[in-house]
């Protein structure tokens, strides 16, 4: 092996410029793939982190996925039964016996529950009417189950809700729409027609535009009075110590209580699917770059084989086996791929540093101040391995051709 490596290196070093160009081809492929993967994974992770940090991991709603089965359906489960003219019974919305459920949930390890009454309200201030979502919360539980307190940009945090009779914490975007400032008094009107004067006691900023521009917080009791739904809660927002277990836990809770239990993955299914498609597109693009680079290696190794026909003949006559000859040229491809990958790692690292320094401010679904990059050893290892493997594969055909050369034919031709 040492001897084959010695000969392979000799061939490559003898044509430095050609070797360097091929290596640069691989390096470009590897470098850009690392930068692209870091960019994609960075934005994906940032988005998911924002979702996981700011949104509940499971939301239990006062809804059911399907209408309850009628007695006749239960009796003839396999029968061709069709019911017509059914009229739904008016039921009082809200989660039944919520505090028992909260107690049961809080008894489970790693779960924090924030009971909430979510309702739609109109906020009026200075002649402006803006529709908003009001979340009535239990401050202590909200603090434990969500990270909203960290997003409050004014003094006092969630406790500021206790500083006024009808305190209200607004999203910064919502406050901007209303033109309201802390300590301003707004008029809140609920769908049931109750009107309440509420004082802005704080502002929050999560970075998720849809939340910041439409959401507000008040004490649970006040929200129940405003919505005219005393003692009712319609959401249980659950934070888990292991957010990735949310899907299984949501399934379990739904099967137990029947209420629709939505995990954060289900709520953002479309987005997560889009990420998967985006990643697939990225890997296809990067693979294409590396395949193009492989053609360069094929070219180099083919040229070397053509130029080194005489050397191959003498090596064969000297006692080198066909597998040795194949090994030499496969090693050449591998070396170009490996060295190209090493250069590419440097290039990828440099590109990540440069991209990380670029600053801009775009408001899309979340506010972005610059490229968010996340490089892991997997990006480096994967791109390096793909480059080295494709380079070795690219050199396989010329290497096989070299190993099949008959020394006698070359020696006769060279005389």
């Amino acid at each position: 092996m040492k001897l084959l490596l010695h000969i392979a290196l000799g061939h490559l070093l003898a044509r430095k410029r050609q070797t360097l160009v091929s290596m640069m081809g691989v390096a470009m492929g590897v470098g850009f793939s690392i930068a692209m993967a870091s960019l994609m994974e960075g934005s994906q992770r940032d988005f998911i982190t924002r979702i996981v940090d700011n949104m509940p991991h499971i939301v239990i709603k006062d809804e059911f996925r399907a209408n309850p089965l009628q007695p006749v359906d239960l009796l003839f489960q396999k029968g061709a039964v069709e019911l017509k003219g059914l009229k739904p019974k008016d039921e009082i919305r809200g989660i039944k016996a919520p505090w028992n459920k909260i107690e049961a949930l809080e008894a489970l390890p790693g779960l924090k529950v924030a009971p909430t009454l979510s309702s739609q309200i109109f906020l009026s201030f200075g002649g402006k009417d803006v529709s908003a979502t009001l979340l009535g919360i239990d401050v202590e539980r909200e603090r434990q189950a969500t990270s909203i307190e960290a997003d409050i940009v004014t003094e006092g945090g969630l406790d500021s809700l206790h500083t006024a009779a009808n305190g209200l914490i607004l999203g910064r975007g919502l406050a901007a729409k209303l033109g309201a400032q802390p300590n301003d008094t707004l008029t809140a009107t609920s769908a049931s027609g109750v009107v309440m004067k509420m004082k802005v006691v704080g502002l929050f900023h999560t970075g998720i535009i849809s939340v910041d521009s439409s959401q507000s917080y008040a004490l649970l009791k006040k929200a129940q009075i405003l919505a005219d739904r005393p003692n009712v809660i319609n959401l249980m927002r659950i934070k888990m110590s292991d957010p990735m277990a949310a899907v299984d836990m949501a399934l379990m809770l739904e099967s137990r209580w029947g209420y629709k239990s939505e995990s954060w993955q289900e709520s953002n299914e479309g987005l997560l699917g889009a990420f998967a498609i985006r990643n697939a597109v990225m890997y296809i693009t990067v693979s294409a770059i590396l395949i193009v680079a492989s053609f360069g290696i094929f070219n180099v190794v083919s040229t070397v084989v053509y130029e080194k026909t005489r050397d191959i003949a003498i090596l064969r006559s000297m006692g080198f086996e066909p597998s040795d000859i194949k090994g030499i040229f496969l090693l050449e491809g591998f070396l170009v791929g490996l060295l190209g990958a090493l250069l590419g790692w440097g290039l990828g690292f440099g590109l990540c540093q440069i991209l990380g320094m670029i600053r801009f401010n775009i408001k899309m679904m979340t506010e972005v101040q610059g490229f968010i990059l996340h490089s892991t050893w997997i990006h480096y290892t994967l791109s390096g391995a793909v480059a080295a493997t494709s380079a070795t594969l690219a050199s396989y055909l010329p290497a096989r051709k070299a190993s099949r050369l008959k020394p006698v034919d070359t020696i006769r031709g060279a005389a």
Partner: protein
Amino acid sequence: MNLETPAIEARSLSRILPGLVPAVLVDGVDFRAEKGELVAITGASGSGKSSLLYLLGLLDEPTSGSVIIAGQDCAPLSDAERTYLRLERLGFVFQFHFLLAEFTVLGNVCMPMKKLGRLSDAEQDAHGRALLKELGLQGFEKKLPEQLSGGERQRVAIARALANAPGILLADEPTGNLDSKNSRIVFDIFRNLARDHGKTIITVTHDHDLAKTCDRQVHLADGKVVA
């Protein structure tokens, strides 16, 4: 009659290239060379000299007949066994030197030793230097082939052929690209190797004057031994 096992022997050796009109390169040749013998194969162009040499050197496979090296019949050997036999027992010198351009003179000479792997790196280095010294190439160790004259390159090629101390040296028109002075030097080396080191040397040559200096001449015509 010599009863000692010949260094190399060919029995009814034939090589026919298949085709619409098959070309007979070597036609039922019987040949033997003893240890320490310098044999010249002569003949007109296309008489089958080089073809016979390649068959003797196991570089080509005969259509029929067999090559026997130091008593071992090579016909039943596998490709890998023939390759190893070449590495261990045979040395080749061609009309073109075939030195590897990327490696130094010493690197070229040490190449067969590295492949055989019997000596340590230091031993290979010392043996390579000794061979070069013996062939009058002391001080050329670190030079590249392109820095040498034609005669010097051919002497390096001889040193490389001798690297694994083979018993048999096969040379195909080794002086074909050399002037008369260098040609004489090469044949002087061959004579010394045969006489002083007991090497069996079989050389193909067009040069009748040089051929006459060999122990024996074998003349080929149309693939057959005629004298």
